[in-house]
C-alpha cells in the first residue's frame, strides 16, 4: 500500500471523532523479505506484507488506546469503539492531549530508495549465500555459521489527528548480517558483522564478512583477568550502547517521573567538559534518521549535554506539557501498537581529534572493550549503577596485549560521564538510534578472578 492510501484510512478514522474528542490515528504497512543462507543453500525465505492501525483517543483528559492488525472496515470501527471505551477508564490528566502543529517544517530526507522495490529476488538470495561463503573462507579457524541473513523492508506510514496534523511517508531499508563461530578443541568464539542501507547497492558485503571474522578470531585464546581498577577504552560499538542508556535517562519521560538521576539538573555540570552530546535526528547519513517523530512533528536537532553541562531533555507533546516546555520532536513509537514514548533518533557525541590508535597509545595501560553483555540487566537507569559483562584486549605500554573475556566492568553512569579522558574522531553509524566513537574512561572496576 502507498502512503496516500494509508493517509486516507487515517483521515477517515479521525473524521469519526465526536464533539470533545481528540483522535490520533496511525496506519502502517510494510513488505518484508528475509533470506537465511546455510551451507550454500537457502535455509528459509520469508516474504510477507503486514499492516496495522493504532488509535489514540483523548476525551475529558482521559486517554485510551486500541490497535488492530487488520485494516478492514469492521476492524477499524471496532478499534475506534475500543479506544473510546478505554478512554473512559483512564484517570483525568490536565496535561493529556495530542501534539499540536508547531510550525516547524520537516526537513526533506530521502529515506525511500525506489531501487529496492524493483530489486531482483535472486540477487537477494545470492547476497545471503555469498555472505556466508565469504565468512567461511575468511579464516581457517571459522568452523560454523549460526546465521547469515539478508533482510529488507519497504514501509509506509500515515498519521492524522484532530489537532490538524497529517503526515505520511515511506522508507526502505536493507540489512546483511552474519553470526559466525570460530575456534578449536580448546576454545570457541563468536562474532557478528553487518551492513545496512536503503537499497542493495548500499550494502558492503565484504565489510560485513570481515567484521564477523575479525570479531571471532581476535578473542581466540582470551582468558579471564584479575580484578583491578583501570582505564577502559570503549570500541564505537560499545560506546553507542552506553550512549543509548544515557539518552534513556535524558528522556522527558524518565525525568517527569522522577526516574532519572539527571532530573532537575539542567545547567549543572554532569560530564567532563570535553563532552558534548545531542540528538542529530535528521542526519541523512544515519539509518535511523527521520523527518517526523511518532506524533507527526518535525524531527530536529536536540542539544543534551554542552561541554559537560546538561542543556536539556528530549520531549514528546505530553512530557513537554508536564515540564512546561515544547516538544522537541522526540516522540517515539515502537509500532502502531504502542503509545508514543520519548526517545532519540540519532544520538551523537561531538567527535574529538584522536584516532582509536592514538587513544590506545595515550592511555598506555588499560582495557580495550570490544563487546559488552547484559547491559539492560546490569544497569539501573534510576540509580545509574552499572556492571556489564565485557570482553576485549588488555592495553599495555600503549599497545594491544592479551585477550580478556568473562570479566565485568562496573561503575555508575554518572561517574563514567565525569571520567571521560579521551574522545575519538571515528564517528560510526549503527542501525539503532545511537552512533558511537572510541571513548576512554578512567577509573572503572574490572572484575575477573
Amino acid at each position, binding site marked *: 500500500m502507498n502512503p496516500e492510501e494509508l493517509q486516507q484510512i487515517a483521515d477517515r478514522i479521525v473524521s469519526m471523532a465526536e464533539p470533545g474528542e481528540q483522535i490520533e490515528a496511525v496506519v502502517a504497512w510494510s513488505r518484508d523479505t528475509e533470506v537465511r543462507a546455510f551451507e550454500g543453500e537457502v535455509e528459509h525465505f520469508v516474504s510477507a506484507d503486514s499492516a496495522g492501525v493504532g488509535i489514540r483517543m483523548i476525551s475529558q483528559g482521559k486517554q485510551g488506546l486500541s490497535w488492530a492488525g487488520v485494516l478492514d472496515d469492521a476492524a477499524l470501527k471496532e478499534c475506534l469503539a475500543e479506544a473510546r471505551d478505554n478512554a473512559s477508564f483512564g484517570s483525568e490528566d490536565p496535561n493529556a492531549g495530542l501534539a499540536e502543529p508547531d510550525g516547524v517544517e520537516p526537513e526533506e530526507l530521502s529515506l525511500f530508495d525506489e531501487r529496492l522495490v524493483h530489486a531482483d529476488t535472486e540477487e537477494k538470495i545470492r547476497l545471503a549465500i555469498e555472505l556466508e561463503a565469504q565468512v567461511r573462507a575468511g579464516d581457517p579457524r571459522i568452523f560454523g555459521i549460526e546465521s547469515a541473513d539478508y533482510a529488507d523492508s519497504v514501509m509506509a506510514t500515515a498519521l492524522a489527528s484532530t489537532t490538524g496534523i497529517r503526515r505520511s511517508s515511506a522508507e526502505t531499508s536493507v540489512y546483511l548480517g552474519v553470526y559466525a563461530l570460530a575456534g578449536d578443541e580448546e576454545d570457541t568464539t563468536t562474532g557478528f558483522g553487518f551492513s545496512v542501507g536503503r537499497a542493495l547497492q548500499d550494502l558492503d558485503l565484504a565489510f560485513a564478512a570481515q567484521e564477523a571474522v575479525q570479531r571471532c578470531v581476535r578473542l581466540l585464546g582470551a582468558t579471564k583477568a584479575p580484578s583491578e581498577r583501570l582505564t577502559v577504552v570503549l570500541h564505537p560499538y560499545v560506546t553507542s550502547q552506553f550512549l543509548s542508556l544515557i539518552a534513556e535517562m535524558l528522556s522527558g519521560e524518565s525525568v517527569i517521573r522522577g526516574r532519572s538521576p539527571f532530573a532537575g539538573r539542567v545547567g549543572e555540570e554532569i560530564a567532563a567538559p570535553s563532552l558534548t552530546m545531542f540528538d542529530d535526528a535528521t542526519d541523512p547519513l544515519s539509518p535511523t534518521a527521520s523527518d517526523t517523530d511518532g506524533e507527526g512533528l518535525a524531527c530536529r536537532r536536540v542539544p543534551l549535554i554542552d561541554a559537560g553541562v546538561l542543556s536539556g531533555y528530549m520531549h514528546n507533546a505530553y512530557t513537554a506539557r508536564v515540564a512546561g516546555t515544547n516538544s522537541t520532536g522526540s516522540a517515539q513509537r515502537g509500532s502502531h*501498537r504502542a503509545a508514543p514514548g520519548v526517545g532519540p533518533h540519532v544520538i551523537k557525541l561531538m567527535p574529538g581529534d584522536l584516532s582509536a590508535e592514538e587513544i590506545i597509545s595515550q592511555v598506555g595501560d588499560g582495557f580495550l572493550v570490544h563487546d559488552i553483555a547484559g547491559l539492560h540487566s546490569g544497569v539501573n537507569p534510576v540509580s545509574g549503577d552499572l556492571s556489564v559483562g565485557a570482553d576485549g584486549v588488555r592495553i599495555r605500554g600503549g599497545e594491544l596485549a592479551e585477550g580478556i573475556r568473562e570479566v*565485568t566492568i562496573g561503575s555508575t553512569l554518572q561517574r563514567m560521564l565525569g571520567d571521560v579522558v579521551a574522545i575519538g574522531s571515528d564517528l560510526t553509524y549503527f542501525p539503532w538510534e545511537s552512533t558511537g566513537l572510541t571513548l576512554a574512561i578512567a577509573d572503572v572496576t574490572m572484575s575477573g578472578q
Partner: protein
Amino acid sequence: MLEESTIQRVLAAAASRGADFAEIFAEEKRSSSALLDDGRIEELTSGRDRGAGIRVVVGESTGFAHTSDLSEAGLIAAAETAASAARGSGTGTTIVDLDRVNAPRPNLVRIMPGDVPKAKKVELLLMANEMARAEGAAITQVSARYADSHRRILVANTDGTLGTDEQVKTLFSISAVASGDTGMQTGRESIGRSVGFELFDTYEVGDLARTAAQRAITKLAARPAPSGEMTVVIGPGGGGVMFHEACGHGLEADLVGKGASVFAGRLGEQVASSLVTLVDDGTMGGEWGCFAIDDEGRPAQRNVLIQDGILVDYMWDGLRARAEGRASSGNGRRQSYQHLPMVRMTNTYLLGGTSTPDQILSDTESGVYISHLGGGQVNTATGDFVFGMTEAYLIEDGRITEPLREGNLIGNGPGVLTSIDAVGNDFAMGGPGTCGKDGQGVPVGDGVPTLRVASGLTIGGTAA
C-alpha cells in the same frame, strides 16, 4: 477458525510445486493492558491480531509467507507465495486426511479476562499503588501494569496433523522507586500465569506491591556489591533464569545442529554435578510457558534434559526432529503467525534436592546470596552468560547479612553446572518471563530450589 475443507485446499496449494512438508498456522489473538504511573491510570490499551502463516519445506529449504486475510483466496495466495519461496520444483501432492490432535489442556480458565469489567482491572492498579506507597515515605514513585491475552491457534499440516489450542494468560507487575540519601533504588515484583482473572483469587496485588516496595527500600541501605569470583547461593524461585540462560539455550536442537552450542555432541556424558536434574515441561498446569499443543500442533511434553548430571536429550521442533528421523519434543514455538517456529523452551527448571536451605547457608562461610535475578543473556556457542542481580545479600559466617546494590553476575554454563555442590528441598517457580531468540519473544517459566554454586561465578560489583 477455518473449515477443514478450506485447510485441505490451502495445504494442497502450498504443496502444489512439490513439498516435503507444508503447514498452515492460523492465529487470533486479543490482548488488553492497563498502565498506572505517577498515581494515575495512564491508559488502557486493547489490541487484536489475526492471520495465518504458511510454511513450505522442500529439502533443506523453507519458504514462509503470512497474511491477515483469512479468506480462502487470501490463504491460497499466501500458500502460493510460500511455495514459490521454497523453490520447489516438483508437482502437486494429494490432499491429505487430517487427524485431530488430542492433547489435554494444561489449565482450565474459570474467568475469561475479556468478561471482566475494565473498571475491575483499573481498581487492582489503584490498590497496588496505594499499598506500595503505604510502605513508607521513601517510596516516591510507583508504576504498575495489568495485562491479559487470549490466543486461539489452529495448526494443520501435510503429515495429517490438525490441532487447536486456546491460551489465556493474565499478568500483573509493579515497580516501586525508593529515594533516600544514597539516591534512588527500584524494586519490582510480578506474577503471571496461564489462567484467567481468577489469578487474583490466589494472589493479592497488595502483597506484590508490598514486596516491590520493600525491595526498593531495602536497597537504599545496600552497599556496592563486591567484585570477583565467589561462592553464590541462589534462593528458591528467583534464580531459574540462570538455568534457562546457562544451559537451556545450549540444549536447543537448532543451535546444537549448527555447532553453536557447548553441549553439541555430548549426549550421554556427565555435563553437570550429579545433583542436577534439569527438566523442560510444557504441561505444567497454569505456568507461564504451558500449552496444550505447541505452535506446530505437537502436544506439550515433559522432557528430562539432564538426569543426575548426565545429558539425556536436547529440545526439538518439527523441522530439526524430521531431519534426525525422530519425534519433536513439543518445543516448536513462535511469537505469532508472522513468525517461523523454532526450538524454544517452555517451563525450564531444576528439580529439588535433599538439603534444607538452612543447611546450605550455614555451611557457606562467605559469599553472596541472590534471592532474585533479573534478565540475562548467553552466548550459546561459548556458554558464557551474564545476568543482573536485582536482590542480593552478603553471606558472612553462614548467615545472610547486608543487602547489596545491583550488579551483574557472569559465568560459564558448563562450568557452573559442574560446580553445583548443594541443592535444596524447597523448589519454587519464579516469575513470568519472555524469552527472546532471533527477534522473537515467547512466554516462558522457570524454577529452582535453593542451590549453591561453589565456584565459577563472578560478581561484577562496583566496590573497590
